[in-house]
C-alpha cells in the first residue's frame, strides 16, 4: 500500500521533522516500509500556470500550433505546441525556458522553422497522472505565473508499506490510522477527522434495508442526489494517483479516496436498482456479472447485497454491473458496511478474485467506521459540490457489536516482559497516543482498547506490552543475557548415533550425503520399473509426483543414482530421512527415520560391492554400539529388490534393517554393466541398541601361533561351525585369509590364531585342534586343500 506524506500531514502536523527519519522509525515501530521512497515533484522545477492568449495554425504541420502564452512575466511567450486540445483562454502547466522535468531541461527549441520558448505540459509530463492525451487543462483560478507546485500538491513523499505486515492491523489500511502511528512516534497530536453532521436529516425517510444474514455485522447507507460535478479536484486526483489508483469520476474517486483515507470500503449504487436492500445468501448457486464485466459463479455460502431478491453486489468484494452508476443516474445510495472477515476471505478464495475492498474486510474492520465514513464522504462531497442534496435519513443496522475490551496491567508486568525499565509516565503517554483509554493508579493501569484495535488485534496484556515497546523502540533496548539456573545438558542417543553414522560414512568411506523429497517420484520410479506402493497420500493432490508418501528411501536413492550415473565409475550416497510405513492402529502415520546407503560401481562385481557394504554396516554397528553384526536371509517384498541376497541386518540380536541388491530392472535402466547394492537401517532401532562398551583384556604375554587352513567349500559357515565344535579355548580368533574361486571350485583359507594366557604353546596341542577341525569337516565332505 502506497502512502502519501501530504495526506498523513492532514491529520498530524509533522512540520520541522525529518520525514525520511520518521518513515524509518515507522518501519521499526509499526510496519515494514519498502526500501524505495519516492520524492514526488523533486525533479520538477520552473513549471508555472500560464494562459494561452492566441492559437495560430502552423503553416507546414497539421499537428503543431503556434501559441502566445502569458506566463505571468509581463510579456507573451512564443510556443510551438503539438497538443490537440489547445484553445485560446485555456490555462495550462507551462515549463519555462530553464525548467526541469526529470532529465529534460527546457531550452529554446526550433520546431519546423519556428522557435519555441518553453513547453506546455500534459499531466503525465509533470508526473501527476498518466494522462497524456493533451496538455493539462487547469480550471482552477490561479494567476498566471503561479508555480504549479504552489497551485497543486505536486510535491509529496510517497512510501510503500508491505501489505503482509499489516495483516493484523485493520486500522492501518487508511491514512488516518497511519497518521495515528506517526503521531505516537513523533509525540505530536492527532487531529480529529472532519465530518458532516447528518443529524438534521434524521427525520427524512430511511432507506428500505434489512440484514438477513449474521455474516453482515453492520450496514449503513444514505441516499443523495443533485450531483453537478463529474471530475474530482486536482489535488484529490494527485493523491489517488500517487497512491496507485486511477481517477475515474467524482463518485468513484470519492469512494476510493475514503477507502484510502479511513480504510472503509464504500460502494455507490444507482438508487433505482436498490430500492429494497437485503443482505443475504441464496439457497442455490447462480451466475452474477460484476462491474468489471466478468461472470462469476456464486455459491450458497457467498453473502450478497440484493435488491429484494435480485443480487446487486458481492458483499465486501465487488458491485454488480447492473446496479452501477450510469450517465442518467440521478439518485445514489451510498453503502458503508462491515462483513464477517472469514466469510469475505473464503468468498475471495472461491471466486479467485481479490479486490482492494476484500483485502480490507479480510482484516476484521472496525464496525464503528461505517457511519463515520459516510459523514466524512458527505463532508468531502459537499466541499466539492455544495449543491448535493441528502434525500434520506442515515440508515444503519448494527447487527453485531464487538465487546469492549478492558485490560488491567501494571508496570511490573511490563518490566518482567521487557527486561528493561520503562517509566509509568511513558507507558501511559504511549497508550493514550495510540487511542487507548487509560485509567492510571500509580503503577497500575486499566486500559480500554479502542474499537479499531479491538476486532482481533489487542485483547491481552502481552498485546499491550507490544504497544508500549514498539513505540519505545527496540533499538533503544539495553540487551543482556538471561538469569537462569544452570544444569547439565543431556545429548540424546538418537542424535549422537545419527551424527556418528554420518561422520563414519563421510570420513571413512567417502560417501556423499544427499537429501530428497518425502513423496514417491512416480514418473522416475516408472522409468526404473519400481512400483509406487500403496501408502498414505497427500489430500487432493493434482500431481502424481507429489502425492504418495514413500515407504522406503531406496527407490528414491536409485533415482538419484540414475541422475548421477555419469558422475564417477564408483560412488556411494546416503541419506538419513523419513518415510511412512502405512498407518498405525490409531490411524496415525507410522513414520520412520531411516538411513539408506546405496553403492554404485562400474568396476566391481556385485558380490564385491555387497561385501563392501556389509563391511560398512559392520563398522557402523561395531564402532557406534560396540556390538556384533549378523545377517539372516529374507524374502524380497518390494519391486526394487533383487530376490537373491536380501538379508536382515542384526546388531547383537536386534534387527535393525536390511542389505540387498537392486533389482536387475533397476540396474538395467541405469547402466546394465553396473553393480548397485543398498542397505536400509531403521535409525530408531539402531539408536536403541544398547552400547556394549569397551571391555579391556590385557594382551597375552606369550606368543600367538597362527595356522592357515584351506578348504574346498562353498561357504565359510560350516568351517566356523567346525572350529566352534572343536571347542578349544586356545583358539582366539578365526578369520578368512583368502577366498579363491576358479569358477568350478571355491576354496576358503581360514586363519586360526592360538594362544595360551600362561605359557608358550606346543606345536602338538595346536595340531590336535586343527586335526579335529579337519576331521569334522571331512565328515561333511569338505576337504582340506593342499
Amino acid at each position: 500500500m502506497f502512502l502519501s506524506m501530504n495526506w498523513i500531514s492532514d491529520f498530524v502536523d509533522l512540520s520541522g521533522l525529518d520525514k525520511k527519519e520518521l518513515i524509518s522509525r515507522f518501519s521499526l515501530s509499526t510496519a515494514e516500509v519498502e526500501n524505495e521512497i519516492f520524492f514526488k515533484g523533486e525533479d520538477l522545477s520552473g513549471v508555472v500556470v500560464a494562459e494561452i492568449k492566441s492559437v495560430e495554425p502552423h503553416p507546414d504541420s497539421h499537428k503543431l500550433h503556434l501559441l502566445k502564452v502569458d506566463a505571468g512575466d509581463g510579456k507573451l511567450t512564443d510556443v510551438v505546441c503539438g497538443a490537440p486540445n489547445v484553445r485560446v483562454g485555456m490555462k495550462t502547466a507551462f515549463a519555462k525556458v530553464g525548467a526541469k522535468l526529470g532529465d529534460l531541461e527546457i531550452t529554446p527549441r526550433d520546431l519546423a522553422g519556428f522557435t519555441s520558448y518553453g513547453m506546455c505540459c500534459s499531466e503525465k509530463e509533470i508526473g501527476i497522472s498518466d494522462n497524456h492525451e493533451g496538455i493539462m487543462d487547469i480550471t482552477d483560478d490561479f494567476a498566471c505565473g503561479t508555480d504549479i507546485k504552489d497551485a497543486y500538491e505536486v510535491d509529496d513523499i510517497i512510501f510503500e508499506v508491505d501489505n503482509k505486515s499489516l495483516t493484523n492491523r485493520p486500522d492501518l489500511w487508511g491514512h488516518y490510522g497511519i497518521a495515528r502511528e506517526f503521531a505516537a512516534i513523533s509525540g505530536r497530536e492527532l487531529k480529529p477527522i472532519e465530518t458532516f453532521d447528518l443529524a438534521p436529516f434524521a427525520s427524512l425517510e430511511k432507506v428500505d434495508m434489512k440484514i438477513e444474514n449474521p455474516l453482515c455485522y453492520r450496514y449503513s447507507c444514505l441516499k443523495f442526489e443533485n450531483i453537478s460535478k463529474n471530475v474530482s479536484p486536482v489535488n484529490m486526483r494527485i493523491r489517488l494517483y500517487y497512491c496507485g489508483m486511477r481517477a475515474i469520476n467524482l463518485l468513484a474517486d470519492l469512494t476510493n479516496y475514503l477507502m484510502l483515507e479511513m480504510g472503509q470500503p464504500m460502494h455507490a449504487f444507482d438508487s433505482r436498482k436498490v430500492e429494497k436492500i437485503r443482505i443475504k445468501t441464496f439457497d442455490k448457486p447462480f451466475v452474477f456479472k460484476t462491474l468489471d464485466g466478468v461472470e462469476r459463479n456464486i455459491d450458497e455460502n457467498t453473502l450478497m447485497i440484493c435488491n429484494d431478491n435480485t443480487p446487486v453486489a458481492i458483499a465486501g468484494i465487488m458491485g454488480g454491473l447492473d446496479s452501477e452508476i450510469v450517465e442518467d443516474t440521478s439518485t445514489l445510495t451510498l453503502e458503508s458496511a462491515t462483513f464477517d472477515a472469514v466469510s469475505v476471505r473464503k468468498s475471495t478464495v472461491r471466486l479467485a478474485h481479490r479486490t482492494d475492498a476484500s483485502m480490507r474486510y479480510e482484516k476484521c474492520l472496525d464496525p464503528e467506521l461505517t457511519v463515520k465514513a459516510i459523514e466524512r464522504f458527505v463532508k468531502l462531497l459537499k466541499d466539492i459540490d455544495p449543491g448535493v442534496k441528502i434525500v434520506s435519513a442515515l440508515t444503519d443496522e448494527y447487527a453485531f457489536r464487538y465487546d469492549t475490551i478492558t485490560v488491567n496491567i501494571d508496570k511490573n508486568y511490563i518490566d518482567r516482559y521487557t527486561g528493561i525499565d520503562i517509566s509509568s509516565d511513558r507507558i501511559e503517554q504511549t497508550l493514550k497516543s495510540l487511542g487507548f483509554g487509560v485509567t492510571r493508579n500509580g503503577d497500575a493501569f486499566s486500559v480500554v482498547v479502542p474499537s479499531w484495535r479491538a476486532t482481533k488485534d489487542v485483547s491481552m496484556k502481552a498485546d499491550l506490552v507490544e504497544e508500549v515497546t514498539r513505540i519505545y523502540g527496540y533499538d533503544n533496548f539495553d540487551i543482556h543475557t538471561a538469569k537462569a539456573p544452570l544444569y547439565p545438558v543431556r545429548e540424546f542417543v538418537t542424535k549422537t548415533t545419527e551424527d556418528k553414522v554420518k561422520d563414519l560414512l563421510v570420513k571413512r568411506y567417502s560417501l556423499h550425503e544427499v537429501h530428497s523429497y518425502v513423496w514417491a517420484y512416480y514418473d522416475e520410479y516408472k522409468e526404473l520399473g519400481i512400483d509406487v506402493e500403496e501408502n498414505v497420500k497427500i489430500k487432493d493432490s493434482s500431481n502424481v509426483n507429489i502425492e504418495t508418501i514413500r515407504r522406503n528411501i531406496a527407490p528414491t536413492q536409485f533415482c538419484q543414482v540414475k541422475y548421477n550415473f555419469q558422475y564417477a565409475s564408483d560412488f556411494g550416497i546416503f541419506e538419513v530421512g523419513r518415510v511412512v510405513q502405512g498407518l498405525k492402529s490409531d490411524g496415525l502415520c507410522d513414520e520412520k527415520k531411516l538411513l539408506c546407503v546405496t553403492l554404485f560401481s562400474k568396476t566391481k562385481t556385485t558380490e564385491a560391492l555387497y561385501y563392501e557394504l556389509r563391511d560398512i554396516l559392520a563398522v557402523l554397528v561395531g564402532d557406534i554400539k560396540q556390538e556384533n553384526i549378523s545377517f539372516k536371509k529374507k524374502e524380497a517384498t518390494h519391486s526394487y529388490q533383487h530376490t537373491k541376497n536380501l538379508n536382515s541386518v542384526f546388531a547383537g540380536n536386534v534387527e535393525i534393517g536390511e542389505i540387498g541388491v537392486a533389482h536387475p530392472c533397476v540396474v538395467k535402466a541405469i547402466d546394465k554393466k553396473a553393480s548397485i547394492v543398498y542397505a536400509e537401517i531403521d535409525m530408531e532401532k539402531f539408536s536403541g541398541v544398547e552400547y556394549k562398551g569397551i571391555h579391556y583384556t590385557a594382551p597375552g604375554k606369550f606368543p600367538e601361533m597362527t595356522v592357515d587352513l584351506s578348504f574346498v567349500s562353498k561357504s565359510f559357515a560350516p568351517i566356523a561351525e567346525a572350529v566352534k565344535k572343536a571347542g578349544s579355548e586356545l583358539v582366539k580368533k578365526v578369520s578368512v585369509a583368502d577366498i579363491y574361486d576358479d569358477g568350478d571350485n571355491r576354496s576358503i583359507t581360514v586363519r586360526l590364531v592360538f594362544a595360551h594366557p600362561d605359557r608358550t604353546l606346543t606345536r602338538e596341542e595346536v595340531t590336535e585342534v586343527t586335526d579335529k577341525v579337519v576331521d569334522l569337516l571331512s565328515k561333511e565332505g569338505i576337504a582340506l586343500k593342499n
Partner: protein
Amino acid sequence: MSMDERIAELKARLDAELSRITEGADLENLRVEYLGKKGSVTELLKGLKDLSNEEKKTFGQKVNLLKGEVSDRIDEYKARLAKAELEKELNSAPEFDMSVPADTQRGSYHPITLVQRECERIFKSMGFTVEDYSEIVSEYECFESLNIPKHHPARDMQDTYYLENGQLLKTQTSAAQNRIYSKYKAQLINEGKPIKAIFPGRCFRNESTDATHENTFFQMEGVMVGKDINISNLIFFMKTMLSEVFQRDIKVRLRPGFFPFVEPGFELDINCLICGGVGCPSCNRSGWLELCPCGMIHPRVLEEGGIDPEEYTGYAFGLGLTRLAMMKYGIKDIRDLNSGNLKALDQFTDGEE
C-alpha cells in the same frame, strides 16, 4: 723372512685385497682367509712353535694384536661397504612426480547438515538441548496449539500438505513447541529448570518450486522458557547466536512482525553481510537483511503447553537453515539442495572452521 716382516707383508696384502672387495660375501671369505682355522694369521701362530720362549711371548702378543687389527680392519671395511651400499640405495631411489595432482576424493556432508551442526554446537554451548521431531504432525500441533485459529490463511490447502488421514506435513518447526513444553514442563515447574531447546527439522509448504522457492526446506526453531525471560534476553541471544554463526559481530534490528504464536512478534534483520550495512544490490540498498522471525511466546501457546503464562515467560525464534546454508555458501538455486546432484553436493566435504 722374519716374523716382523711377515706381519708387515700380511698387513699390506690385507689392505690390497680389501680395496678390491665390493661385496659383503667376499669380505666374509676374506675374514676366513685371514682368521679362519687355516687362515694366514692362524698360520703365523702355527709358526710360533719354532721360536724360543722369549720370542714366542713377544711374537705371540704381536700376532694376537694383529688378529684384533685384522678383525677391526675387516669390520671397519664392512661398515664402509654397508654405508656405501645404503648410499647407493638412497641415490638410486626414484624421484616421485609431485606434479601429478593429489587425489582429493572425499565424502561429503549435505550443506544443511553442516549449517545445522554449526548452529547446534553454538546452542549446545549455551545449554540448549537439541530435539528431534516427526515430520508428520496433527493440525493441533501445527496450528491450534500455536494459536492459529481455524480459518487462518496459513491453514489453507494452498499452503499446507494435508494427508488423507487428517494429519499433515509440518509447515513449520514450531509444530514441535507444544510437545516440547509438555516434555519439560515438570522440570520447569518442580525443579526450576528453564526450558532451553532447539529443534531443527524439515518443513513442507505447498508451493511451486523455482530458484528461490522450495516445497521442502529446513528450519531450526529455538525456545527458552523460564521465570523472567524477556525481550532484552531475546535480542541478546539472537545477536550472540548470529555473531557465532557468521563469525563476526552482527548488528541486529527488530521490527514488529505478526505471527500468531508470539506476542510481541518481531522480524529480525541483520546488517547486510555483503556490504556491511551501507547498502548494496543484495540487501536492496537498505543495508539490512531480513533473517528470522522471533518473539515472546504467546501466552495462549504457553497455556496450551501446560505452562502458566502469568508465572513464566519465554522467547522463540525460527531460523531458516536452508536460507542460512544458501547465504553461507552462495548457493543461488534452492533446488540444488534436494536434487541429489553430486556435482553440487560433493563440495561440502567439511564445515567447521
